[in-house]
């Protein structure tokens, strides 16, 4: 499974739920497969998707917040797992698409293959799941509906070849429509 396929599976299941998508190809893939006002696309400030998701989760306890993260992204802000694990937001679902490389900068390796991100998250009070198949990912997405967060799904993916197009929305527009859907959902 490549990232775009995984992003599509998750995004279709979530319908109009709130998503914070990490910068780089994750936001681009999400924009291309399923652009919605309830998606907050990050442009720059790498590493902070999970922190923005935490702030949202704490202030909207009745809404589920989904974070679409990458291995390079979370490795830049590992402390975020500690803060999330300390505050234990029940409504936060953290999905890490792990291809083991910084794909958008030329596929240089990250160190995610040398360590166990899922075990670090587990030690930080997350409920943790790991998958590499589409079928299993679909069943996990059903399973977590009834579980209390923070939840992590580590999706092991293959490096892709196609690049999704750039997000052609202004950052302020991304913010405004996200805030609007936050009010309505």
């Amino acid at each position, binding site marked *: 499974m490549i990232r775009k396929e995984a992003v599509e599976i998750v995004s279709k299941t979530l319908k109009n739920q709130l998503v914070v998508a990490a910068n780089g190809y994750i936001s681009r893939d999400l924009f291309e497969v399923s652009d919605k006002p309830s998606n907050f696309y990050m442009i720059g*400030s790498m590493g902070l998707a999970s922190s*923005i998701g935490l702030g949202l989760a704490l202030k*909207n306890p009745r809404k589920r917040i989904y974070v679409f993260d990458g291995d390079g992204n979370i490795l830049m802000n590992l*402390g*975020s797992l500690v*803060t999330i694990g300390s505050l234990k937001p029940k409504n936060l679902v953290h999905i890490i698409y792990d291809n083991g490389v910084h794909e958008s900068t030329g596929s240089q390796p990250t160190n995610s293959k040398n360590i166990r991100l899922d075990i670090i998250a587990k030690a930080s009070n997350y409920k943790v799941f790991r998958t590499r198949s589409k079928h299993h990912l679909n069943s996990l997405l059903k399973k977590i509906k009834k579980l209390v967060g923070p939840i992590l799904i580590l999706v092991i993916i293959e490096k892709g070849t196609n690049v999704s197009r750039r997000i052609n929305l202004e950052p*302020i527009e991304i913010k405004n429509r996200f805030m609007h859907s936050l009010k309505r959902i």
Partner: protein
Amino acid sequence: MREAIQREIFNYLTKKGIENFIGVPDSTMKYFVDQGLKKKRVIIATREEEAIGIAVGMSLSKSPSLVFMQNAGFANSLSTIASLVQLYNIPVIFLISWRGHLKNDAPEHTKIGRIQPTLLKSLSLKSKILSENGWVKECSWALNKFREGQCCALIIKRDFLD
């Protein structure tokens, strides 16, 4: 800045609607942070950029936030302020200490302390220095900026050496 004033500043900002105080602590503002911890309004983050990310999530939820940090942490945060807070035009108040403006300060404070005003200016991050006699005015200035939807910074000077 005296303990009583630091505590009063915290209470004042809370009374005026700031709901969340997120950051990395500094001895320069330890009574301010302590007051927030007592009132259970503080989240201690692992790094300043993380604190800013959390504040942005809260701000998107229309819950007003202040991010506190040392000036070394401010230097860490330049990219996040530029490409998250300012790029998306998200209102946040920063409280940044100013270590290294005194002579004979520790070497790790001196360089950043010297370039801090330039860094603020380069970012076009508007700021005011908190004073013992004028802090109400300075805080009101920040709250007004915040209400206009802008980010800004309050600077707290370190007036002691340790």
